[in-house]
């Protein structure tokens, strides 16, 4: 999602369609989880964001990314829902049905080997960060300002695009650490979810994001 996310002609943000069916990520992510996660949780964030913006004319018409860049100035109801809308849209685009996401290659693979030793090293660092994160939040792979790849987490609705976030850089990949992302399929076993999730990572999207970030 390197492009800007703009509101529609009526000034409201829309729940983006998924690129695959609700059951397409099974067994890594079951269909009911997808149905609720996209159709209830993400939808509620979009609806609440639109309601919050309707009360604040000065923020209307701005892109989602422009809102995140000034997160420190935003009222909590705009900040939390803008963050969750962006993060979930990016999360859906980070995934593809098992066997369809490809594998890291080219410049992305070279950067992964430089910064983590191997794709396995990246997976290990990413899962360790996700398992250690306390409470709700997100696990990220970002391209830092110095060009290095970095793994880290953010709490609740935070994204690396927000000023003052716990992690900064250009997002390349994200996993959702909120319990709603895995409780139906994995119960309390977040580590099992993190490990299984790599089956549905969309490496083609990650590679395109990395190329765009390098060119920027």
């Amino acid at each position, binding site marked *: 999602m390197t492009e800007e996310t703009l509101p529609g002609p009526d000034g409201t943000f829309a729940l983006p369609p998924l690129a695959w069916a609700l059951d397409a990520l099974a067994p890594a992510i079951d269909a009911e989880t997808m149905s609720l996660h996209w159709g209830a949780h993400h939808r509620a964030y979009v609806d609440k964001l639109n309601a919050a913006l309707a009360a604040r004319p000065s923020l209307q018409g701005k892109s989602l990314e422009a809102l995140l860049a000034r997160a420190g100035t935003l009222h909590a109801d705009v900040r939390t829902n803008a963050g969750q809308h962006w993060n979930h849209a990016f999360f859906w685009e980070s995934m593809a049905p098992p066997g369809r996401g490809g594998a890291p290659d080219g410049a992305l693979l070279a950067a992964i080997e430089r910064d983590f030793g191997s794709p396995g090293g990246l997976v290990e660092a990413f899962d360790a960060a996700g398992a250690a994160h306390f409470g709700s939040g997100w696990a990220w792979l970002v391209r830092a300002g110095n060009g290095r790849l970095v793994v880290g987490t953010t709490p609740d609705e935070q994204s690396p695009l927000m000023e003052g976030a716990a992690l900064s850089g250009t997002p390349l990949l994200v996993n959702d650490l909120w*319990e709603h992302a895995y409780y139906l399929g994995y119960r*309390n076993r977040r580590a099992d979810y993190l490990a299984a999730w790599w089956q549905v990572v969309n490496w083609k999207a990650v590679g395109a994001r990395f190329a765009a970030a390098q060119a920027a």
Partner: protein
Amino acid sequence: MRTLRPALLPALLLALAAPALAQAPEPAATGTAAAPAPVGPFALDPLPYGFDALAPVIDAETMRLHWGAHHRAYVDNLNRAVAADPALAKLSLEQMLARVSTLPKPVRDNGGGHWNHRFFWTLMTAPGTGGQPSPRLLAAIARDFGSLPAFRRQFEQAGLRQFGSGWAWLIVRPDGRLAITSTPNQDNPLMDVVPEAERGTPILGNDVWEHAYYLSYRNRRGEYLQKWWEVVNWNQVSLLFEAAQSRR
């Protein structure tokens, strides 16, 4: 009105605990696997009722996981944190919480997690058996929130508005008034990281982490918060209120 808005955990212990339960506890879930938890000063006490006692408000599987996996992990990780820092061994859990800003983050997360869940289990009882607020507690609720239904609505709102994981609380403030607050993650009103105006003695708390309600209520946190009143143990809350008053 004062609404603030804004280890093997030793197998031996388990064996001792089991007879008190309607069902024997499951073995520890191993989301974090790896090393066994150290034998430490803190223990997972048995539930005061069976896993299915709170149904249909809270289902048996949720109780089994919530107590036997989530709460157990907080106890195990708290014992690990204490084992790693001998200076902590001299402190009670409440002493740790009162100075938690000076202690390692795992003490805040897991010390809070242990205190909050141990407290939470005592606040609930089988539907229809929890009684009513005592006359003195009811008078304080009416004084500070208008009425019992108004209090319930405000408490539910606090639970709904806590973004992400956390807790909704009813506390007795140092001046004796009641207040509704909420905290993120496993923070609680006994911690020095909480703003002074939201500190006090908890007499009621509800867990709004998704693990508390997701199996039965899915994303509908508001419905969980409404149904939860059916299992609140008002007899216990009234006792906690009296104790907090007499300590002032």
